[in-house]
């Protein structure tokens, strides 16, 4: 299968007062045309920085490695090319949707903008914008077309941001926590619309979210990040049914389920995500892990097996069981 997006050995360094800090450390990622991939991991694991690096939105960071969209290299590409890619080929929903709207421009104008830039005529752009907003569950979309962002509730603004990202029919949508401000019924509506659009137009989606319930229903493939590295990836059924990395298993176990009569304590992962400046040697997860071998403390585990659909970066999962010492 030819990939739409291919990220190879992505590294992102930020300059901080105490020196350069590597926030993303050798990430590989692919998205095929029309594919829906979820990027998950705890807060601070580097999901948003990855999305921004793909789109060339980190002017102050040092980004190395390769990001190819249909073969075209984006790392180091000119601003003109990057702007073109962002306008036409990749739609983006920022994690903080409320700050990405222009407060002094009407909602309608902002949703039409990507079409107008492409030369679509105004009346046509307006029709399509209203239609899309209505499909996203914005009530009275036509009447509210000339409202300003502050007149919309948080949930409505979030849907506007999604509309702006998909109206020009990009090949890839990168959506960073697109439904967090929505209540469950609106969330379900927005997700099924994204489903529909993705299918209709063969739009690929890279979905970044904390919500493993959403991942289960939306994604075909899941990439799990920890401390700036990928620790496991695989088809959605594999990840939910046969996760191999202790971190992935810990995340899944910590989620309360609505279909279970479970009271009492939830299993938790002890400790917290290290800051990029204090990433432990070896496997970054080892201080929080309950079954480690010596190698965990000294060698960064590789994602294995290399060519397999389900890959894991864990010494214990990929080595002999008898070497395991319980800590």
């Amino acid at each position, binding site marked *: 299968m030819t990939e739409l997006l291919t990220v190879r050995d992505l590294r992102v360094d930020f300059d901080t007062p105490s020196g350069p800090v590597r926030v993303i450390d050798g990430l590989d990622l692919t998205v095929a045309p029309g594919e*829906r991939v979820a990027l998950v991991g*705890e*807060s601070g694991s580097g999901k948003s920085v990855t999305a921004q690096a793909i789109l060339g939105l980190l002017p102050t960071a040092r980004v190395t490695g390769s990001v190819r969209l249909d073969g075209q290299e984006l790392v180091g590409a000119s601003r003109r090319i990057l702007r073109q890619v962002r306008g036409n080929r990749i739609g983006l929903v920022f994690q903080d949707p409320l700050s990405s709207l222009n407060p002094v421009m009407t909602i309608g104008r902002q949703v039409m903008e990507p079409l107008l830039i492409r030369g679509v005529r105004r009346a046509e752009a307006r029709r399509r914008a209203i239609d899309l907003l209505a499909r996203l569950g914005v009530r009275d979309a036509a009447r509210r077309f000339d409202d300003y962002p502050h007149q919309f*509730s*948080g*949930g409505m603004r979030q849907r506007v941001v999604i509309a702006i990202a998909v109206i020009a029919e990009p090949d890839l949508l990168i959506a960073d926590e697109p439904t967090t401000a*929505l*209540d*469950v*019924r*609106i*969330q*379900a509506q927005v997700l*099924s619309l994204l*489903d529909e659009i993705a299918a209709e137009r063969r739009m690929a989606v890279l979905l970044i979210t*904390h*919500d*493993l*319930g*959403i*991942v*289960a*229903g939306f994604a*075909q493939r899941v990439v799990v990040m920890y401390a700036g590295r990928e620790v496991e990836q695989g*088809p*959605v*059924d594999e990840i*939910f*049914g046969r996760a191999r990395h202790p971190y992935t298993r*810990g*995340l*899944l176990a*910590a*989620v*309360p*389920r*609505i*279909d*279970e*009569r*479970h*009271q*009492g*304590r*939830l*299993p*938790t*992962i002890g400790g*917290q*995500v290290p800051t990029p400046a204090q990433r432990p040697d070896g496997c970054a997860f080892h201080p929080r892990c309950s079954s480690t071998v010596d190698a965990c403390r000294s060698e960064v585990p590789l994602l294995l097996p290399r060519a397999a659909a389900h890959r894991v970066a864990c010494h214990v999962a990929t080595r002999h069981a008898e070497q395991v010492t319980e800590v």
Partner: protein
Amino acid sequence: MTLLRVENLVKSFPTGYRSPPVTVVKGVSFTLDRGEILGLVGESGSGKSTTARCVARLLPADSGRVVLDGRDVLGASGRELRSLRRDMQMVFQDPYSSLNPRMPVGEAVSEPLLVHGLVTGRAALRRRALELLRMVGLEEEHLDRYPRSFSGGQRQRIAIARAIALEPKLLICDEPVSSLDVSVQAQVLNLFHDLRERLGLTILFIAHDLAVVRHLCDRVAVMRGGEIVEIADSDTLYDNPTHEYTRSLLAAVPIPDPRRERARRGVGTG
């Protein structure tokens, strides 16, 4: 044993010059037993936070009755009100803005004790602060650190430690885990569970995540448009919802199981 009784609570807000006020809480009634955790769910804007704030006397209600432990809350004033305020503490969604960035967390946690004159003397305050921090899973080394050096989940636990400093009878939590990721959320939910077991704390728990509510709460009230449309014990409500609105809410909750999700949403994958 009933700890809290809310009867016919009504609250409206003015909408501006010459337009009539809009009523956002329209006669809400419920009770909470001692040691019970009641979940309050419902769509955005349904009046959950407003109800909670009226109960806690952070907002004046238009009418209705709130009785905590036999004492009238809405009509209280002076000493009576001060003592009621001590017995009802709130925890909010945002652990970042609810702590003073310039106060070491040990002081933040014991400040309410100082304010209410319950503990005096630096050493005694520090001892109590440490007890409270330990209760929420933090340690002595954390006492003198500032909020910014804590993770979101730790900050929320610090906010909870502060809220329980006065040994309140009722804890009102407005979306206390909504801004936390799953692993940290699990830590905080476990903390609520333990506090109820150990201190017999009674909790009114507002959340939009219905799975979280099922996990933690004994009973659940569903609000819509300023009214409670259904209230029942958790298993009854989740297994046999009677109100159409409750059913539609439950049907929209994603389940972290790909096969079931695909079946439920009728989408094909692969």
